[in-house]
């Protein structure tokens, strides 16, 4: 059944079949939106993990600290969704022409409309033999978290964290809180440099060291060495040193779960599935599809506010907001469809500090500390690109970020013209010190690629609350 035109859209809403591949945060919230907005057809939820949808952010915090068991992060439901759940079975193929999804157990499931919400997975350690050593971990699923928690509870003599992005920094923070010795190896000059730049990354480096982390920057791990029984014993670094470690946590970013779409004709790759601002997937020709939608970490969508660049965001709030738009648009037509225009935002908790960001910090050529001070680790910094505010980052100052979000939405001038409270004695614009994008990097939480032609008719309006 096609759903073009109001009458057919109405029929689809009453009796169509929607398949959602990906049963995590985005898939669940999209399903709830579909039912909330009156979709009474059949709904199939397909997920490769065996569990009902669960929340991932607590895995690197409460779960590693032992405050919450790994299997106790199930997500709350906004409403009943009356779905046919197919959990523990990954989708392995998509036939666009036949409107069918193939599952790993041999089943094929037809659909009228499809939502792709397969998310991302942890990038594994590149060496396959070393990856399989007992003591080498990644952290993405609740199973990963349970295994790592068990190892940390067994008091390893030293933990090696490979990569000092948000995940690596949070793992290091949890290890120190548990009283474990931890070494962090980071290729960049400071932690979080890919996401927040070198200026704020330097603040985070001091946080690491003051909490007793053995932070080693500008080094890579060249080899993980096991003993004859296959247990991790030592790590070799690019500076020629070696350290004895019982556990290594590989925190090298993530890869989009798009292999199952290979050959489907969709514009899908390691950096997600490209879609329009209304969440409709692009095919490889760059033509938008009619019945396939994308939401959550796996989506790569243009944002008019950032010069129509395609943003690949691994943000909790983006997954929710985009899923709501996708759900709405899957059962709407024409002008009833909405664009996904939510301002990106994320948080991290590490070393007892709440780190918050709104906008896209990497989309900046200058920055300025607006409130507080970097030395006290309590501040708001604004980021600017070509004379307008594009992002703000706050350490233990979350209450100001709604104000900065408004500035970003209004394309307010940078440097900002207002006089903030708690302003530093000297306010000056500086380079945020992002790494050269031409160099290999794993740290960015936002990837900006390509652009759509500017359309001057678009007027940005905030997403509905």
């Amino acid at each position, binding site marked *: 059944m096609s759903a073009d035109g109001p009458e057919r859209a109405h029929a689809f809403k009453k009796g169509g079949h929607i398949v959602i591949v990906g049963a995590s945060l985005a898939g669940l919230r999209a399903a709830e939106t579909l039912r909330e907005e009156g979709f009474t057809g059949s709904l199939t939820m397909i997920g490769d993990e065996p569990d009902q949808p669960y929340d991932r952010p607590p895995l690197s915090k409460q779960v590693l600290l032992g405050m919450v068991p790994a299997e106790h992060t*199930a997500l709350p439901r*906004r409403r009943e969704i009356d779905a046919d759940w197919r959990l523990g079975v990954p989708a392995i193929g998509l036939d666009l022409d036949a409107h069918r999804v193939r599952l790993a157990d041999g089943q094929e499931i037809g659909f009228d409309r499809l939502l792709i919400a397969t998310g991302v997975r942890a990038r594994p350690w590149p060496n396959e033999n070393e990856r399989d050593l007992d003591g080498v971990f990644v952290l993405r699923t609740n199973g990963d978290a349970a295994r790592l928690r068990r190892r940390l509870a067994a008091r390893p003599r030293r933990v090696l964290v490979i990569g000092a992005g948000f995940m690596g920094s949070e793992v290091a923070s949890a290890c120190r809180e548990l009283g474990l010795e931890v070494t962090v190896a980071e290729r960049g000059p400071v932690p979080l440099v890919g996401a927040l730049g070198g200026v704020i990354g330097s603040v985070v480096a001091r946080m690491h060291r003051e909490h007793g982390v053995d932070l080693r920057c500008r080094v890579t791990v060249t080899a993980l060495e096991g003993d004859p029984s296959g247990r991790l014993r030592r790590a070799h670094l690019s500076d020629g040193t070696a350290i004895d470690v019982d556990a290594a946590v590989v925190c090298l970013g993530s890869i989009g779960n798009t292999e199952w779409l290979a050959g489907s004709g969709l514009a899908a790759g390691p950096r997600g599935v490209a879609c329009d601002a209304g969440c409709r997937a692009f095919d490889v020709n760059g033509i938008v599809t009619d019945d396939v939608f994308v939401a959550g970490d796996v989506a790569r969508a243009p944002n008019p506010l950032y010069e129509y660049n395609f943003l690949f965001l691994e943000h909790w709030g983006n997954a929710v907001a985009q899923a709501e738009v996708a759900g709405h648009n899957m059962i709407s037509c024409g002008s009833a469809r909405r664009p996904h225009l939510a301002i990106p935002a994320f948080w991290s908790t590490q070393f007892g500090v709440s780190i918050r960001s709104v906008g896209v910090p990497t989309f900046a050529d200058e920055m300025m500390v607006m409130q507080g001070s970097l030395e006290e680790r309590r501040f708001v910094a604004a980021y600017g690109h070509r004379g307008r505010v594009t992002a703000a980052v706050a350490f233990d100052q979350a209450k100001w970020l709604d104000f900065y979000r408004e500035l970003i939405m209004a394309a307010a001038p940078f440097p900002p013209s207002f006089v903030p409270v708690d302003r530093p004695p000297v306010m000056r614009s500086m380079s945020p010190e992002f790494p050269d994008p031409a160099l290999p990097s794993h740290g960015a939480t936002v990837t900006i690629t390509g652009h759509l032609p500017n359309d001057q008719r678009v007027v940005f309006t905030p997403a509905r609350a």
Partner: protein
Amino acid sequence: MRLVVDLTRCQGYAQCAFLAPDVFTMHGEEALLYDPNPDDAQWDRVRRAAAACPVQAILVDQTEIPATAQEGTHVR
């Protein structure tokens, strides 16, 4: 019971940590840690915490509300 805190929205007012201290705890000045699946006995406290949150960042499962809790009494 199942709950989640939208930490994009949370501003660290800590009302929840006062009202349901076994579920929500402050970790540093503004950072919040919480139990996403606390015991059902926490229902009333969690409901009060969710209602008191100044930025309404706490989502409590809407499909598993105990009948007794709707009457305002303690569950189990």
